[in-house]
């Protein structure tokens, strides 16, 4: 069995003044920025009651954050993957993470943090207050093109 020692240690970085802003992309269920429900799409994994699996089971702080992607293209690629999985399970199954992608700009001074392990899939973890993260959304686009 693989040892959990193979898990890379946390590489959480705060968004500070020396890196003024960082663009990340996150799946959301709302279609427009001014939807009050947008803040619910920025609850942490722990707040949503998600089960800790894989690396999150070894590094609990990851559960205080949430998933995002480095680029819009990589987010769309991952959305296609989970959509394909959902349709194979049940053809009419809705995609529970939503059908839109929010472009989020993480700026310094807002208490935002992120982790990017540099993997090919572009997956990242971001941390921040849900309302502040929702307020950092600059655009929402369809996940499927």
């Amino acid at each position, binding site marked *: *069995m*693989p040892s959990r020692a*193979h*898990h890379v240690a946390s590489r959480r970085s705060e968004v500070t003044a020396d890196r003024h802003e960082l663009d990340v992309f996150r*799946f959301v269920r709302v279609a427009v920025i001014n939807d009050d429900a947008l803040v619910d799409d920025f609850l942490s*994994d722990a707040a949503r009651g*998600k*089960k800790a*699996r*894989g*690396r*999150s089971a070894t590094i609990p702080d990851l559960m205080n954050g949430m*998933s995002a992607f480095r680029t819009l293209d990589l987010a769309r*690629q*991952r*959305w296609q*993957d*989970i959509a*394909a*999985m*959902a349709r*194979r*399970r049940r053809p009419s199954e809705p995609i*529970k*993470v939503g059908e839109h992608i929010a472009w989020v700009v993480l700026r310094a001074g807002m208490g935002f943090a992120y982790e990017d392990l540099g*993997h*090919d*899939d572009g*997956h990242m973890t971001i941390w921040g207050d849900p309302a502040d993260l929702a307020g950092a959304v600059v655009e929402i686009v369809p996940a499927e093109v």
Partner: protein
Amino acid sequence: MRFALIDMDGSTLDTFDDASSAIACLQEMLIDDPTAADEIGVIEYRDGQRLRSPMLATEFITWSRIERMQAFIGRGLENVRIDLAAALNATNGDPSRAWIEIAISSVKAESLDTVLRDPQSHQFSLAV
């Protein structure tokens, strides 16, 4: 990174450089939580690109077993026996991954679980 384990939120749960490690991790997850079988997918990458659509966890385990069996088809029966004897001596009764890889070459997929449970005493047929 060659394999990424993902969930239905789109999160990357873990990454591995080889199929064996990915399978071992999946099997651990499924023992802890059998409902994860159709909640976790596996994506294979090569040179930074996705090779195919994701496989669900149980599909990936089956696919990987079949692939490894196919890699051994065509090897002489004598070679398989020699490899197996050496592997058993080397592991001293500990079912290492190397032993399991070789055992896969000489049993049918549906009997693999029996071999894994009791590798020391299992009498398996060399049917491919």
